[in-house]
């Protein structure tokens, strides 16, 4: 599955995406050490300051420096996005692979039916339901998003499994007399992981924007924790006088989503060995 990745124009979107992602990761991890203001400290004397040398992105209605809140908040959005996709990849794909391999069983039929029903709910609604049942919070947001995306991974893994199960090379491999287990791990699984990795990368961006949406609604990371969604929520009421304070978190989210999409898109071309 390793292909030579050329350092040239063809893969420019990939490089741009990776640069964007690396910048984001650096800002998220190192940024908090460099910003001087405490993101949580209320400072009513300096409310709603515009962009200045002192506050590079201004302050919000409680006098908190927006830049420092954005930098500290990045990790919540990113971690929620990545962890929830990680969980749903493992969970959804495992069930999907089993459902695809043993496709003639009642078990498989049941799983697919449950996944279809789960997919009928918009993920936001699932987030709302879980927030209502378990309350808002970081772990619950991760759980909500993971539950929301698992059916997609299940369907994906199952679909891939069903299509490769009857391919010629599988019959040819069987004719060599290997055990079913070996056939599974050496031949089927390597062909299943590529599509899953690609979609996991792309869906991570969806997960991040979902976290922002849930936090915006107050169902995700609870205030005063500075997730991008909560920053958006805080500043929304002042959009008429201070539009940029709403725009900054949007730019940040767009940056994260775009970087992941660019990478995921090129992954598709790179990991599919059939593309010459």
């Amino acid at each position: 599955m390793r292909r030579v990745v050329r350092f040239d124009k063809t893969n420019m979107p990939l490089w741009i995406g990776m640069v964007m992602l690396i910048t984001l990761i650096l800002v998220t991890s190192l940024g908090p050490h460099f910003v001087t203001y405490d993101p949580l400290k209320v400072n009513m004397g300096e409310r709603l300051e515009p962009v200045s040398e002192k506050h590079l992105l201004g302050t919000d209605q409680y006098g908190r420096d927006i830049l420092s809140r954005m930098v500290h908040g990045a990790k919540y959005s990113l971690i929620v996005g990545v962890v929830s996709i990680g969980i749903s990849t493992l969970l959804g794909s495992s069930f999907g692979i089993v459902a695809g391999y043993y496709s003639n069983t009642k078990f498989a039929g049941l799983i697919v039916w449950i996944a279809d029903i789960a997919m009928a709910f918009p993920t936001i609604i699932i987030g709302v339901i879980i927030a209502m049942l378990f309350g808002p919070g970081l772990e619950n947001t991760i759980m909500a998003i993971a539950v929301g995306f698992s059916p997609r991974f299940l369907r994906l893994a199952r679909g891939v499994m069903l299509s490769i199960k009857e391919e010629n090379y599988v019959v040819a491999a069987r004719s060599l007399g290997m055990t079913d287990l070996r056939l599974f791990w050496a031949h089927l699984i390597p062909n299943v992981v590529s599509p899953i990795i690609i979609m996991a990368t792309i869906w991570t961006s969806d997960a991040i924007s979902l976290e922002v949406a849930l936090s915006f609604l107050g169902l995700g990371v609870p205030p005063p924790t500075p997730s991008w969604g909560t920053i958006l929520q805080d500043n929304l009421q002042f959009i008429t006088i201070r539009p940029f304070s709403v725009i900054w978190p949007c730019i940040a989210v767009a940056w994260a989503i775009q970087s992941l999409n660019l990478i995921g898109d090129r992954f598709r071309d790179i990991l599919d060995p059939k593309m010459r």
Partner: protein
Amino acid sequence: MEAEKVDRRLLCVKDLRTYFYTELGIVRAVDGISFSVGYGDTLGILGESGSGKSVTALSILRLIASPPGRIESGEIFFEGQNVMSLPIAQMKKIRGNRISMIFQEPIISLNPVLKTGEQVSEAIRLHQGLSRRRAWEASIEMLRMVGIPSPEKRVNDYPHQMSGGMCQRIMIAIAISCQPGLIIADEPTTALDVTIQAQILDLLQKLTRDTGTSILLISHNIGVLAEMVQEAIVMYCGKIMEYGTIEDILEHPCHPYTEDLLRSVPRLDQQLPRLNAIPGVVPSLLDLREGCRFSDRCKKSLEKCIREEPPLIELGSNHYTRCWLHE
């Protein structure tokens, strides 16, 4: 076919029936086939699409998908053992090891995400228990034996980086890697262009002549069989229509189907206004009537042919035909 002589041959198939149970009915893909292959011999199976040739091959290795297919009845003796009665674990020791198979479209018969070296090493590691490293070295040797240039480099390539002819050589390398007694070649050259066809056939012949490996060669191409086999069976709708040496089949065909097949091959030395196609279409295997299966398309059919199916009639030394004309 004399019973005792036949039992001592390498492969002996007796009255094989493989049916597929579908929603539309039972498809009798192979409906009573018997043949044998001697040690070091090459047997050809000639027939058009749907005649049951590939199903026969898969049945020998018991690779028929079990819903919906089933090997209804029949015995298959390989090296004296009835493989139909073996537990699957034993069968897996035979596959790839004592009997191996080459498939029709080489590029898609190889795993696209594994390197060639890994795929060639696989059978060796499975059946000979070599370590990864030694199997890798052995696979480089195998690639050299099948005539792939720069095998040390090719061993790291992926199937899509190679041409069809090369991929077929890889498949042959995998097939011979454990020195099998029998190679089943299911249309090995059909997907390749003519010059490569010749090379692949030569390769197969060379490799098996040196080792005394038998080949069961399946093809719809009479020319391919004429080159390679000593005996051949002609299959139609799951039954054997004619069986004999390749010379008898080509020069003294005794079944109207065989005659029509031979006549349908276009020749460079003839000028014809139209090709000699066999009129009609192959009947659906779901809806077979009584009587000879070829009767509705046969130019020489008698009234008896429509009512009653002929048995295999012996014509002479090792030449049989399923036709009332030779009663």
